[in-house]
């Protein structure tokens, strides 16, 4: 088994003639946490999608715990989970049915009571039997986070986890991420909420126009870039 959770070499992704990621060399150790920062269009989401195997790299290689997320797709799916700004939810299913579908597809046996406890963790118990189509974006985000609890992956990718959340929701998600980091899960977060996330993540990487512009301790990141308004 590889000692790195994530390793990519000379990674590049092109859309048409435009390279949105180029020459990205990255190594994240098991249990480490990495904050991806950068302005809009700097390539954060594309990098996460390539790492998660949702987008093929146009150049270079990616390994997640030593496995290629494309040629060893199924094996990698058991190792990683992604929470995106896309909710991946079916509006017609209730919160409880959604959890049950995720558990069954992931091949994990969960009793109804355990799923109810999970809903309770994100304060969604009163909305257990309501279709998620009527949920606010914050409620959707909280429900989506439960996917990582069900799948229990070794690596979690989070794309703008604090977007569209009120202050209570932000605190809940921050606690969530901090707990995953504490438990030794490898976490990669792409976010504009630099001060909040740099308190949770150990390392940081600043992307500019698809290339690594700076890499170092997350605590040093705020001084490297202007705070977003």
């Amino acid at each position: 088994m590889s000692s790195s959770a994530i390793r990519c070499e000379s990674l590049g992704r092109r859309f048409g003639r435009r390279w949105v990621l180029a020459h990205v060399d990255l190594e994240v150790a098991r249990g480490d946490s990495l904050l991806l920062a950068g302005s809009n269009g700097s390539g954060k989401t594309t990098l996460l999608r390539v790492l998660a195997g949702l987008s093929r790299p146009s150049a270079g290689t990616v390994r997640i715990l030593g496995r290629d997320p494309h040629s060893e797709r199924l094996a990698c799916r058991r190792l990683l989970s992604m929470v995106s700004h896309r909710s991946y939810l079916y509006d017609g299913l209730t919160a409880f049915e959604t959890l049950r579908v995720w558990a069954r597809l992931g091949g994990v046996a969960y009793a109804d009571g355990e799923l109810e406890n999970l809903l309770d963790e994100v304060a969604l118990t009163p909305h257990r039997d309501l279709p998620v189509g009527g949920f606010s974006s914050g409620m959707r985000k909280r429900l989506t986070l439960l996917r990582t609890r069900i799948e229990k992956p070794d690596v979690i990718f989070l794309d703008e986890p604090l977007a569209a959340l009120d202050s209570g929701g932000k605190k809940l998600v921050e606690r969530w991420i901090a707990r995953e980091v504490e438990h030794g899960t490898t976490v990669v977060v792409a976010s504009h909420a630099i001060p909040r996330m740099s308190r949770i993540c150990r390392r940081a990487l600043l992307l500019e126009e698809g290339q690594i512009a700076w890499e170092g301790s997350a605590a040093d990141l705020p001084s490297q870039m202007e705070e977003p308004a």
Partner: protein
Amino acid sequence: MRVLGQIATLVRKDLLLEWRGRTRGLSVVLFGIVTLLLFSFAVGPDSAALRAGAAGFLVLALLLSSTLALSEGFRLEHENHALEGLLLAPVEPMALYYGKALSNTLFLILLAPILTPVAVILYAVDAGPATLVQVIGLWALAAAGLSAPGTLFAAMTSRLRSQDVLLPLLLFPLVVPVLLGSVKAIALVLGGDPMGQLSSWTVLLGAFDVIYWTLSGVLFTHVVEEGV
């Protein structure tokens, strides 16, 4: 066994969503009924001609309704990028395909008990309960033959703005054998089978179903993986 469990979960999920979004199902049923009505208007009051064409009209109504149902089925998967969420789960692409194809087939089969009696009344066909059951059985085989490539092409075209045009253009030429087999077999059930040809046409229909279900299942893996 794990793949079978995943297929069952996906089918259950699709049928539940179908039930919750009943307006979509209702529009497909109404579209089928309107199609049958239009055929009867086009032929006119010649009851012999209507009876002779009943099997063809019925299968064409199924074919036209199926394109509507298939494209709508995948539209659901693109709301909130749900398909991408499924691709992130440890699910075999084969399970994704067979789950979707199976739920599409079941949905099309459910049209039979509604459209067949309508056709029997409209086209003045003399059909007892046993005949109706036989027609519904053949309809199920035809629905399976349409759903297998239909699900594949719906997946291929689901992200395109021109899906409504492309799906029938790709699907219709490929399903001609299913169309021929089912029209012939249903015509023999409705009009009598003095030469005992029904079993040959049914076997032909079944054989094409097996070919389509096997090939489309293999090809779907590539469609999904190239699509990301």
